[in-house]
Every structure is written in structure tokens, then in C-alpha cells.
């Protein structure tokens, strides 16, 4: 079985449709978006609250599949000299969580009226899980991708709370607890694997910063009131993020939000 599986070959059935991230950023309509016309934080007050929540739920669903694929590849792609067995065991346990999350997300989608494949899927989450260096891959998956998952789940949990949807609120809360564990795993393994190699740790953190900038989607994730996905500081700190790291993610998101060509990601 080959190693380092490309995103283009991920298995999907006919219900799924792949979209290119570049197409979203190159959408000619971006230049006509009026300043300030952004969807805003996901709250029940938004007129399109139901649609936006369903769309985000579908994004979570495909994100869970890609997180499962990313963690699964790490179990297979590296031998024990490249990645300790205990790390791969953690990744295998994470696969179990992601598989459950995928099933929960399908049921939540059904609860909200969304079908599998209703929205296009981009593969940028999985692409962050393709680095050939296991330490860089670990930061890409367990700190950047799973960190984003913390932000998204907390946003959805708060949305469920605000509109009185007990099913959404509890499901998101339970999955959020798993995501905090996954990020904590990433934080712990990064520290252990680079204990005597500060240069490699620096490269890994730089890679994470690049991925995090991509995952901020030009301000779609951030701390601004108009950011649909809110940065979840408390949960990130529980998962091993330092204040300075979170400040950097927030600042990068703010800077990117001011750039032209803002476009909401889907899937």
C-alpha cells in the first residue's frame, strides 16, 4: 500500500462533489462584496441562521472525514523510527473518535435538514495532513486542523445553546471534549519529539502558523464580531495553546480579513 496519499485520490461516492479552494478565492464576485457585508457571527439573530448552521454542519461532516483520513495516514505512513509507536497508537485512537464524529455529524445534518454531499467539499483540511515530516504533519493535523475543530464546535455549541436546540448543543459539547484531547495530544507530542531539536520545533510551529492562516479563511475564523467562527480561547488554552500563540492566530486572522477577496469557505 502506497504512502503519503494525495488528496485527489481520496475515496468518495457519487454524492460528494469536490471544489477547489482556489476557485473560491478567485471568484470574480469577491471584488464586488461591499465593505462590511459579511455574514457575521453565527447567531439565531442572523436572518439566514438555519442555512448558515446547516452549511457549517456539512463542513464539519466533511472535516471529520478528512481528519479521520489524516490521522489514519499518520498511523500508516511512518515507521517506528520516524514516529514512535505510542504516537501512532494515539492517532489510531483519534481515528476512532473521528469515525464517531463523522457518524454524529451525519445524524446532526439529518436533524437540521441537510443531506450528505449537499454542499461542495474542499480538501484543504486533508492537504494539511500530507506533510512528509511526522512532526510537521502532527502540528498541521493535531494543532491547526483540530484547533480549528475546537473553534467550530464551540461556535456550533453556542449557536445550539442560543437557539434552544438541545440536540445540537449536547452533540457539539461532547465532540468538543474530544477535540480538546486531540489538540492536547498534538501539543504533548510536539514537545516530546522536538525536546532536543529546537530548530525542528521552530519549523513545525512555522508550518502550523501557515496552516492556521489558511484555516482562518481571511477572517472567517477570528475574534471579530463579523467572524462566523469564533476563536475559542478558553478551550484552546485547555488544549495546550499559550496566550501568545492564540494572539498570533487572532492577529493573523484580523490582518487577512482586511485583504480583498474575502470568501466564506464551504466544506
Amino acid at each position, binding site marked *: 500500500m502506497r504512502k503519503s496519499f494525495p488528496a485527489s485520490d481520496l475515496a468518495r461516492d457519487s454524492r460528494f462533489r469536490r471544489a477547489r479552494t482556489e476557485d473560491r478565492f478567485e471568484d470574480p*464576485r469577491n471584488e464586488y462584496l461591499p465593505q462590511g457585508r459579511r*455574514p457575521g457571527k453565527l447567531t439565531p439573530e442572523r*436572518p439566514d441562521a*438555519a442555512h448558515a448552521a446547516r452549511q457549517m454542519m456539512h463542513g464539519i461532516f466533511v472535516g471529520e472525514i478528512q481528519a479521520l483520513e489524516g490521522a489514519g495516514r499518520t498511523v500508516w505512513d511512518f515507521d517506528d523510527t520516524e514516529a514512535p509507536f505510542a504516537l501512532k497508537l494515539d492517532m489510531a485512537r483519534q481515528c476512532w473518535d473521528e469515525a464517531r464524529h463523522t457518524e454524529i455529524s451525519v445524524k446532526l445534518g439529518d436533524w437540521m435538514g441537510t443531506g450528505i454531499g449537499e*454542499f461542495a467539499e474542499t480538501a484543504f483540511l486533508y492537504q494539511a495532513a500530507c506533510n512528509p515530516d511526522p512532526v510537521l504533519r502532527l502540528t498541521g493535523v493535531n494543532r491547526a486542523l483540530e484547533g480549528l475543530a475546537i473553534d467550530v464546535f464551540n461556535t456550533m455549541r453556542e449557536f445550539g445553546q442560543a437557539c*434552544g436546540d438541545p440536540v445540537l448543543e449536547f452533540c457539539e459539547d461532547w465532540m468538543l471534549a474530544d477535540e480538546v484531547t486531540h489538540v492536547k495530544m498534538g501539543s504533548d507530542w510536539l514537545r516530546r519529539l522536538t525536546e532536543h531539536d529546537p530548530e525542528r520545533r521552530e519549523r513545525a510551529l512555522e508550518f502550523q502558523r501557515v496552516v492556521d492562516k489558511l484555516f482562518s479563511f481571511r477572517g472567517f475564523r477570528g475574534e471579530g464580531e463579523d467572524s462566523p467562527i469564533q476563536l475559542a480561547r478558553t478551550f484552546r488554552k485547555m488544549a495546550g495553546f499559550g496566550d501568545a500563540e492564540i494572539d498570533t492566530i487572532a492577529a493573523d486572522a484580523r490582518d487577512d480579513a482586511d485583504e480583498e477577496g474575502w470568501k466564506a469557505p464551504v466544506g
Partner: protein
Amino acid sequence: MIVTVDPPAFSLVYFDAGRIAALTGEVGALVGLPDDVRVGIEVDEKSPFGKAWGALSGRSATLSVEGGAFEDPQRLRQFSDAGARLVLARLLYRVADRLDPAFGDPPADPDLTKAEHAAWDAYSLGRYAARTGLDAGQGKRRYAFRIRHGFDDASDRAFDQLWYGSGLSWPDIEKICTPA
């Protein structure tokens, strides 16, 4: 029914004005709009957002649609026949209701509350589902209704009354949505 679409040609999205006019005629006939009604559709192709609303003046209706409302959620900038039909059904049933003196006198679209929007949409798409035999996104509409009216049995019963209802008036809709 006389239908006009503005703009007559699109440059930012892959929409076809003729197709939009044809679908409008088809859905308008299905909801029972009289032949003398004029329907003007104004599509803002610059907007990827999905807001859509209508206004009625005499026997002329203007439907304002942000391009995202007609867009295929799987294919960027592509037109969705199925999605457009649902948007048109929602808007054209409102036009038909407003033209019917027995329906009553609902507020203009911009003055409707979010809860009223959700209720009228459920009633409109429920009738569309009954006429066409399509699902018409009942699950989506139920979730949108619950957000505005509560996640409880009373809210679900109200939704069912609207979705499966017929011959309702605006006061009926308001009554259904008022907690006992």
C-alpha cells in the same frame, strides 16, 4: 403571466435569463398566479449571498434575488434548477396570497418578523410539496421554523399545520404561531 428578468445576460455567474423566466412561468402557473400578473425578477449577480424577497404593486410583482439564492451549493457560480424552483415557489406563493382578498393583509416583506417569515415559508413550500409531490426541503424548513418558534412539540405541531395546511389566511397563520 408576464415575466421579465433583469439583467438579460449574466457575466459573473453561469445563469441564463431565459431559463429563469421559463422556471418562473412554470412555478407561477403551478401556484395559480393569474395570467394578467406581471412578475419582474431582479437578480443581483454580484452577490453570493442568498437573500430573496418580493414586493407587490397592483398586479405587478417585483422579486429581488441575490445571486447566491439561485446558485448550486455543489457548483460555484452555476445555476440550480431545483434550488431556484424552491425560491420561486416561496416568493410566488406569497404573491398569490397577497393577491387573494380572502388571505388578509400581511405586512410587506421587509416588515415581517423572522418568525413570520419562517411560518409563511413553511405554508408556501408545504403547498408546493403537495402540488408537485416533491420533498421541497421539509427538513430544512422544519429546522428553520424551530429556530424561530422553539424546539418543542407545540412548535412541531404548528409547523405540521402550516406544512400540510391549505386555504389558510394570514390571521390563521398568526394564530397557529401564537403559543396557547
